[in-house]
């Protein structure tokens, strides 16, 4: 492409022909040797009885260093080919690994799970639609559908988006230092794992019988106001709301941060013009700010909907899916890992895929529109 055809530009002028060949074979050898060494090291690290800290450190060095080494060797290896070959091989080295990994870890498994969903627990006998009958009619799944759609999607996403919007708009009107503090506090839960958040909120919801010192914040407030303490997480139907509250606590910060950036990008002149025309702040927000950040609202909403439909950690750690709090992803996990019914687990996974399909299609259209300039 660039240097091969013109000897004058070639760096290794002394051995015009043999140099690329030599270098190429050496690099090919080095690549094969590295793969072998990395493979041996992997087996050694997997089976070795060494101190945990050493294994962890060695694993990090092995993983990070190994992938860098392989890329360096391969990229330099293909550079030794004649230009015509190189034109095909270079993209392969650059884009190939990513494409291969995504196909192996996402595209093919989706197909294999689809096939699996028509087979029995161990994946041996064809059972037709039996697993889907389970996925659409069993009590567990019906409860999951209600919870995922009514509670997690509607309440969870709705409140996160609206609260995020409110905080972003209001904080924008306060002193910059105050604004920064508010945003940091609301955003902070994003850094916490859902399991960690569950421990935090278990403490808020903790229930002790009436008359005993309440150590859960919610019941303490309730009894201080003269009410009876309640077992928040054990009350069917309503307990879902208390789980969703954790989700809102975690997700509002994400919505707020994106909205805040979008709001600050709305030109001040536009808002001033509205105010001069006599619009009050609410009207300015509804008619100028909101239409201007529509795109962000849409993206944030779809992102949070995806998280809500796939919710797993909070339910698994707070109630384990008991007391009417079951969700689709937890049924999938339970079928796969507790009951070892791969067929049913696969069918439930396909249901989960079907549920998010509209959003996927919307996103795909969006991508193909954005990449038209390719």
């Amino acid at each position, binding site marked *: 492409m660039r240097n091969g055809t013109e000897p004058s530009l070639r760096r290794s002028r002394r051995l015009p022909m043999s140099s690329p060949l030599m270098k190429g074979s050496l690099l090919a050898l080095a690549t094969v040797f590295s793969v072998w060494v990395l493979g041996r090291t992997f087996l050694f690290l*997997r089976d070795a009885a060494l101190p945990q800290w050493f294994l962890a450190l060695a694993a*990090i060095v092995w993983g990070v260093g190994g992938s860098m080494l392989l890329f360096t060797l391969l990229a330099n290896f293909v550079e030794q080919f004649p230009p015509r070959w190189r034109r095909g091989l270079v993209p392969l080295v650059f884009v190939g690994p990513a494409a291969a*990994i995504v196909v192996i870890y996402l595209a093919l498994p989706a197909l294999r799970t689809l096939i699996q969903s028509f087979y029995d627990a161990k994946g041996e006998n064809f059972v037709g639609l039996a697993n889907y009958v389970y996925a659409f009619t069993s009590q567990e799944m019906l409860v999951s559908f209600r919870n995922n759609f009514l509670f997690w999607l509607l309440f969870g996403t709705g409140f996160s988006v609206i609260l995020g919007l409110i905080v972003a708009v209001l904080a*924008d009107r306060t*002193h910059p230092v105050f604004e920064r503090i508010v945003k940091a506090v609301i955003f902070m839960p994003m850094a916490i794992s859902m399991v960690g958040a569950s*421990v935090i909120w278990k403490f808020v919801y903790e229930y002790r019988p009436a008359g005993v010192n309440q*150590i859960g914040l919610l019941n303490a407030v309730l009894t201080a106001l003269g009410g009876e303490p309640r077992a928040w997480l054990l009350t069917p139907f309503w307990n879902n709301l208390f789980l969703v509250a954790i989700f809102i606590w975690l997700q509002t910060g994400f919505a707020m941060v994106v909205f805040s950036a979008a709001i600050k990008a709305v030109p001040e002149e536009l808002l001033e013009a509205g105010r001069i025309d006599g619009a009050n702040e609410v009207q300015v927000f509804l008619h100028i700010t909101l239409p201007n950040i529509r795109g962000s609202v849409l993206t944030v909403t779809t992102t949070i909907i995806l998280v809500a439909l796939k919710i797993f950690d909070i339910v698994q750690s707070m109630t384990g899916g008991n007391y009417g709090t079951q969700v689709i992803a937890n049924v999938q996990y339970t079928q796969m890992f507790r009951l070892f019914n791969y067929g049913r687990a696969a069918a439930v996974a396909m249901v989960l895929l079907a549920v998010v399909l509209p959003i996927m299609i919307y996103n795909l259209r969006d991508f193909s529109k954005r990449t038209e300039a390719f």
Partner: protein
Amino acid sequence: MSRNSPASVQRRKSHLTPGRILVYAILIFLVVIWITPTLGLLVSSFRPAEDVRSTGWWTVFTQQSEARFTLDNYRYALGLPVQGQVNPRYKTVGLQNAILNSLAVAIPSTVIPILIAAIAAYGFAWIRFPGRRWLFILIVGLMSVPLQVSLIPILRDYIKIGLNGTYLGVWLAHTGFGLPLAVYLLYNYISTIPRDIFESAFIDGASHFTIFTRLILPLSTPALASFATFQFLWTWNDLLVALVFLSADSSTQVLTQRLLGLMGSFGQDWHLLTAGAFISMILPLTVFFLLQRYFVRGLTAGSVKE
């Protein structure tokens, strides 16, 4: 940031109307609600076990004379001796191993996808080849596929080839699940680097590899940092992938798994849970507050631009 120009700030600060007071009041109310649960956990983690069990954490503030503080909860959680001896009841807790395991999972699970995604993003942005757009849409379009769909086939493969329960298996899984977003974010950034910056390098006969490592990688640092923050928090906080691919043995379990285990088997040992939860939160919170700028940029990159 035109809103924070001196003139507008001046205008905003000029007088306190009832409306402005209401705005501050609402925000302060929300901030208090948002921070109280975490504050409760932090305070509790420093209280003696019997205090945590018998009274609410706020009594530290309401009855200051009776407030007692201790580091014992953290010692129990980390398997350190308390008053010269290790409590046999908590011998199995040992979160110090889980911290190492979390690091061993999270660091390569962050670096490997970034490397692969940056290479691919460069390929998509600056190398012409047939099928480029189609391949890009395939990779990025898989972003919203629920990873639950992949678990069973991958798990079966792992068991077959002996990758189950290994770090390598988890790294590759995290790489696979994180790649679409990584490629998308990094492509957005790398494709906007002006071409003339490396045009001259091309003319000098530099290879794609040289241009990528010498020019593109250093120039992309902000984008790499924002995805790194994102992916690190994601992999550190992940529960599902760890449960599925690492579950076999408690010596390889990560913090989130151990914490979930503690909630089950030590559900009434509140003091232990509080310390454990806080231990699991220290690193992500530090990363978060240090790199918040990059994290925010990563989050908003895809969403703000229409």
